[in-house]
């Protein structure tokens, strides 16, 4: 059975099985607009895959594995709905139809990125709750803080660290340069999103001293020139 079809069934079962009761194949067929025979056949296949448990005449229930898969699709669907309506300003009806198609091809990574970009929405435009993610974080705030997405506001206002005067910390947006230099800077904690402050610069294009993660580092000018931090505009 194609992945898309299986996910549609799982999603429908999740909607119909509120409270954990068994779902009749007829109800499923009605919901998805298919013949009852196809619905029964599909449920039997899902049963073989370990996603649902099925007892003839009584109905089907989602297994733990099936529940997880269904929640995931649901989460993708609702995140997409939020994105389409809030960011792309699409009409809710159209957004729902679009999300139904897109949810099956959305990767888990894009799903996480979507969640962070939308600042962890709790519900879809209709007010239905969005199932939580399975990341090892305590809260959306912790997820945001850990990844510091603020620094990745694309293309807007990244300036070389050395173009600034000594002062308050700015977040690193990106670091360029030779592979081993970038790696070394990362090892020392100059990763994207980290606040770094310029302490002083030696004269005649000499090295700079920066403060990062509680340590002071001397960096050659050529290296520091390739560290880009948020400009004032981006920080505001």
């Amino acid at each position, binding site marked *: 059975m194609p992945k898309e079809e299986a996910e549609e069934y799982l999603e429908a079962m999740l909607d119909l099985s509120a409270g954990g009761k068994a779902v009749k194949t007829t109800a499923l067929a009605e919901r998805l607009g298919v013949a009852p025979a196809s619905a029964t056949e599909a449920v039997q296949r899902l049963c073989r895959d370990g996603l649902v448990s099925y007892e003839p005449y009584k109905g089907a229930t989602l297994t733990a594995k099936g529940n997880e898969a269904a929640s995931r699709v649901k989460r993708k669907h609702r995140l997409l709905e939020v994105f389409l309506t809030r960011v792309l300003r699409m009409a809710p009806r159209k957004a729902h139809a679009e999300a139904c198609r897109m949810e099956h091809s959305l990767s888990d990574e894009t799903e996480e990125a979507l969640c962070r970009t939308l600042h962890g929405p709790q519900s879809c435009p209709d007010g239905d709750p969005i199932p939580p993610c399975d990341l090892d974080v305590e809260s959306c705030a912790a997820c945001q803080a850990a990844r510091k997405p603020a620094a990745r506001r694309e293309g807007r206002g990244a300036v070389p660290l050395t173009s600034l005067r000594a002062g308050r910390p700015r977040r690193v947006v990106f670091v360029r340069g030779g592979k081993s230099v970038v790696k070394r800077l990362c090892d020392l904690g100059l990763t994207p999103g980290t606040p770094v402050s310029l302490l002083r610069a030696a004269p005649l294009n000499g090295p700079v001293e920066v403060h990062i993660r*509680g340590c002071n580092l001397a960096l050659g000018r050529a290296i520091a020139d390739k560290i880009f931090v948020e400009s004032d505009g981006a920080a505001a």
Partner: protein
Amino acid sequence: MSCHGEGPAPAQREAGELVIALVGNANVGKSAIFNQLTGLEQAVGNWPGKTVEKAEGVLLHDGRRIRIIDLPGTYSLMARSEDERITRDFLLAGKADVLVNVIDSTALERNLFLTVQLLGMGLPVVISLNLVDIARKKGILVDAGRLEKALQTKVIPTVAVQGAGVHELVDASLAVEGRPRRWTPDSLRYGPEIEKRIEKLSTLLSEHRTRQPPRWLAIKLLEGDRRLLRRLARKDPRLPDAVGILENECSELHREPCSTIIASERYALVGRIAGSAQDFVSDAGRKNADRLDSASMHPVLGYVIMLAVMLSILAFISIVGAWVATGIERAFESLNPHAPEWWGALLWNGGAVGLYAALGVALGFLLPFYVILSILENSGYLPRIAFLMDRPCHAVGLHGKASVPLITAFGCNVPACVGCRIIENRRDRLIATFLSTLVPCSARTAVILGTVGTFMGPLWAMALYVIDFAIIIGLGRLLHRTMKGSSVGIIMEIPPFRWPVPRLVGKQAWARFRPFLATAVPLIVLGSLAIEGLRQAHALDEITAWMSPVTVWWLGLPAFTGVLFILGILRKEAAVVLLASVANTVDIPSVMTPVQMFVFALVIMLYIPCIATITALGREAGWRLAGLITAVEIGLAVLAGGIAFRVLAPLL
């Protein structure tokens, strides 16, 4: 002066022996812990990159033989310089039973970045939470218990310089011996995008027998460890493709190289752990430290301070040196029995004069110098000099980091040659190693101050230094122009200033001074006896006559100096010490004109690195290059000496 920095030869592992390796960032106190445990004297000081060679020591603990390995500091397991490679290779070879990870409590995040990598290596790890006293002063309180819980490994607070907690480290190591943690706590897991790829790769790796756990190897491969990939690709040719695909997936998602993503994820993870384990109470004392930093690295004031520090050291040593040396000479001469027999002259002119001249140099010039160098090292001033000197170093194609070994070269060229390992690329390292052999070491300073400085005045001594620096800069520029490649630039931690601990300064100065007393003084006395014997046998003139075309005709020196140049190969300070025995008088101005003295000091300063330095060069840069450098320096010295003679003779 030679102070050999060689570690003992790696001993064969004995049965029942426990091998503990000390691992951690640079400048966190690994060597201090090593010294406390083994009673040995590894150099310690407040700058990153002192330990560039692994050192070994043995400790008997409750009857158990425990071998402690002190490894050079590293920020990650991806070696970027020679010293880091030593650490990486040692760890990857799996020669340790237990890793003691020394971490700096004042910079928890950066230190835990390495810890997280060590924890997955499949070896038991004990954490030494070091510098807790300094952290407390800075208002940072680290909770060992909470850290222990997050890392799921033993954490012991230590103050290495005082020895607090170091023996608990051994107890803890014994307790975890042979019991590596095989699971990864949730607190040490990365984000799902990364974890998924780690899992894919480790499934592939788990089909093979590997020394490290598949998960650890997978992370390293995704981080772009090409050396590891080449090695593992021999076991499984599918690996390079698999790594390439997974890396691409990662970097496409985030538009950053995969290694950056993993580093970011790891920092996010250690940031969470550090945040949960530390509390900040106050920022007391921060203001003063900032003020000190502002002054010592100020664009103008910083250079003024640096120059003042250097000049006052030179002035101090030349005054103290001359005073002590003449004091010792007077004391000895007042005892001179003036025995008329031939053996009396031999013993006195050979033995006693050699002894007091050597002691004068040792106590007057070397000992004060070593004390000052130790103070400089322990205070944390050296990295500031590296910062100030970075731009000037560009003139000779180096960056500021090279100035640290070059400054230690003022003490002795041998550790400086080895110390150049902290420089990342081979070209820079070779240039720095070459130049460090031309830096006037303490022995040469003794020659300069003991002859020119004492009899011609400090300005002439300064002139010699200026000539030497001019040669170093000229040669550096020449090498910079001719050798291919370019320098990447300085990346160096600037540690906070610390008050030097007098006990440590004394110990360290003594550790450098002792080899001089033990080997150089007897050597000088023997050399002095030999020269006196040769003179009495009328054989000295033959040797000096053989060298006279160079010494007398080209350099305009008295013939007797010839033998000094030969002895000076062994030890440079021997040349000035034995000057008295060769000339058969301590009244140098009566046998040498000022011009001759200047030329003599100049040639001694330049003509050859001493035998110990040549050996160190051979090991660091290869024997071919060591030979070449030696030949160049002999040529340079003879050339410079001849020119100086012809320029100065009409003037003075």
